[in-house]
């Protein structure tokens, strides 16, 4: 039984005429790390929000851990299981200190204060924010704020976290901090859904789902995307990183770069041993 299952799901926003998602079938197993890519308004965010009942399907069914999100009684249990991290951490930070921010979720779960304290300690430790416990969140860097958002979700002890472009507002070094943390969480068995428009970040996951105009147009191993030619990628509305463009050109010139090669270093090593 998959952890998250979409059966013929369509979704339309009330003010729009077109469907944002169109007849989507999808299943995600417990402990899987799946990434979702696609251009703006391809339906990535809508798909993510259907997974924790922030949105309810217009047609079809979303089942999370055997719970149907159409049943309003299931909304809170679904959200306890599936946490969501947004693009901009400033939009979800509400408290005046790091500790209070992390406490906010568990405080609403009717658990004892000892348990709350325990969860805060653990969440801060996991995200490396213990030192900043009494800091006001606005004095943290962008990457630290995103880690704080992650800590607040971890304190709810979800089984799955959806990351909706968590790094797109961060600089390269902060981006690395956040993606490393996501990778670590995945290693502990957490189910991860990672929405991004950066092709290089897709490589963190085991499976990638490509959306275009509200449809799933491709599902594959991330490495497959990198071995596609530029024209096909462009048709999927994906923007190939420079290295993919270079490898593509080299192939056109008769150098058959193997598809496992995805980093600058690997490429140069390959060229050297030719």
């Amino acid at each position: 039984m998959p952890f998250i299952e979409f059966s013929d799901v369509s979704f339309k926003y009330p003010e729009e005429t077109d469907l944002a998602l169109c007849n989507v079938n999808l299943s995600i197993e417990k402990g899987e790390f799946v990434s979702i890519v696609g251009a703006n308004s391809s339906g990535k965010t809508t798909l993510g929000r259907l997974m924790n009942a922030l949105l309810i399907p217009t047609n079809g069914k979303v089942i999370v851990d055997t719970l149907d999100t159409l049943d309003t009684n299931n909304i809170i249990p679904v959200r306890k299981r599936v946490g969501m991290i947004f693009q901009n951490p400033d939009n979800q930070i509400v408290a005046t200190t790091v500790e209070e921010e992390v406490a906010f979720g568990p405080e609403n779960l009717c658990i004892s204060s000892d348990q709350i304290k325990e969860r805060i300690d653990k969440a801060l430790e996991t995200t490396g924010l213990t030192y900043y416990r009494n800091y006001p969140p606005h004095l943290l860097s962008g990457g630290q704020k995103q880690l704080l958002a992650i800590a607040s979700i971890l304190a709810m002890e979800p089984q799955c976290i959806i990351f909706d472009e968590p790094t797109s507002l961060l600089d390269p070094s902060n981006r690395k901090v956040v993606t490393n943390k996501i990778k670590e969480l995945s290693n502990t068995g957490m189910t991860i859904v990672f929405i991004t428009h950066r092709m290089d970040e897709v490589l963190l996951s085991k499976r990638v789902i490509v959306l275009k105009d509200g449809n799933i147009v491709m599902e594959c191993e991330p490495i497959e995307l990198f071995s596609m030619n530029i024209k096909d990628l462009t048709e999927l509305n994906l923007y190939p990183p420079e290295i993919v463009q270079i490898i593509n050109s080299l192939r056109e010139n008769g150098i058959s770069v193997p598809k496992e090669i995805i980093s600058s270093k690997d490429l140069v090593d390959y060229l050297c041993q030719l």
Partner: protein
Amino acid sequence: MPIVVKNLTFIYDEGFIFAKKALDNVSINIEEGEIVGIIGHTGSGKSTLVQHLNGLIKPKNPNSVIVDGVDICDAKTNLKEIRQKVGLVFQYPEMQLFEETVEKEVAFGPKNLGISDEEIQMRVKEALEMVSLDFDKYKDRSPFLLSGGEKRRIAIAGILAMKPKYLILDEPTAGLDPWVRIEILKELQSINNKSTTIVIVSHDMDEISKIAKRIYVLSNGCVALNGTSKYVFSQFDKIKELGLSLPQITEILYLLNSKFGEVDYTELDISKAVNEILMALNRKGKWKSKIA
């Protein structure tokens, strides 16, 4: 020299416990008609620096920021004039959209300049055109119901309608998808071709390497590197030491050069870079052109 910044130092919350030196003796100059990139990681002082360029933050010492020969520190300086001349597009400018329609939004700036309604409408049309939005299609729509890329463009158009001589953009493509990003960069290039000087703040090397001819790299409030983009990206070790990433293209060529030698790793154009790689392989007898 149109915009000259000389020995500029700025400390946030000076004298308080959280005091932080954001700029430390920074000197830069922006020539008329060029596209200049300012890069550096978060907290390096990029945003603080550009907020000085139109007097949003006033320098302490006279003659540290001069725009077209006018010292913005001088009590006699008309800052309104400076701000019309130096248009500043903030980070996430769509957060400051507030009007009911796109037309009113873009007209807001020029309306405060005391010019005629016809002139305002013309400017709004022109500004929207510069960011590839059709006036008739968008003018009556609410800016809040547009996509992220469209909102960003409306915000940029709002500044363009002021007809600035210098356009300063703080992270103009952050948070946008790669295609929208490329379109906006193309639009900026064509705005520059029509003689508007552009300063772009970014931490995306791939992006800045495509558009800026000259680059300042900031680190801890100081200018750590400056020169043509070719020169700046050739300083491989220094850039790494500053915790910045290089354009992927530069990284590949640099690594190849360290193995093969004689590779021009300052090349930033993809097809020329591929050519460099093929030539290097050819010299080592590892590849032969089919055409030759």
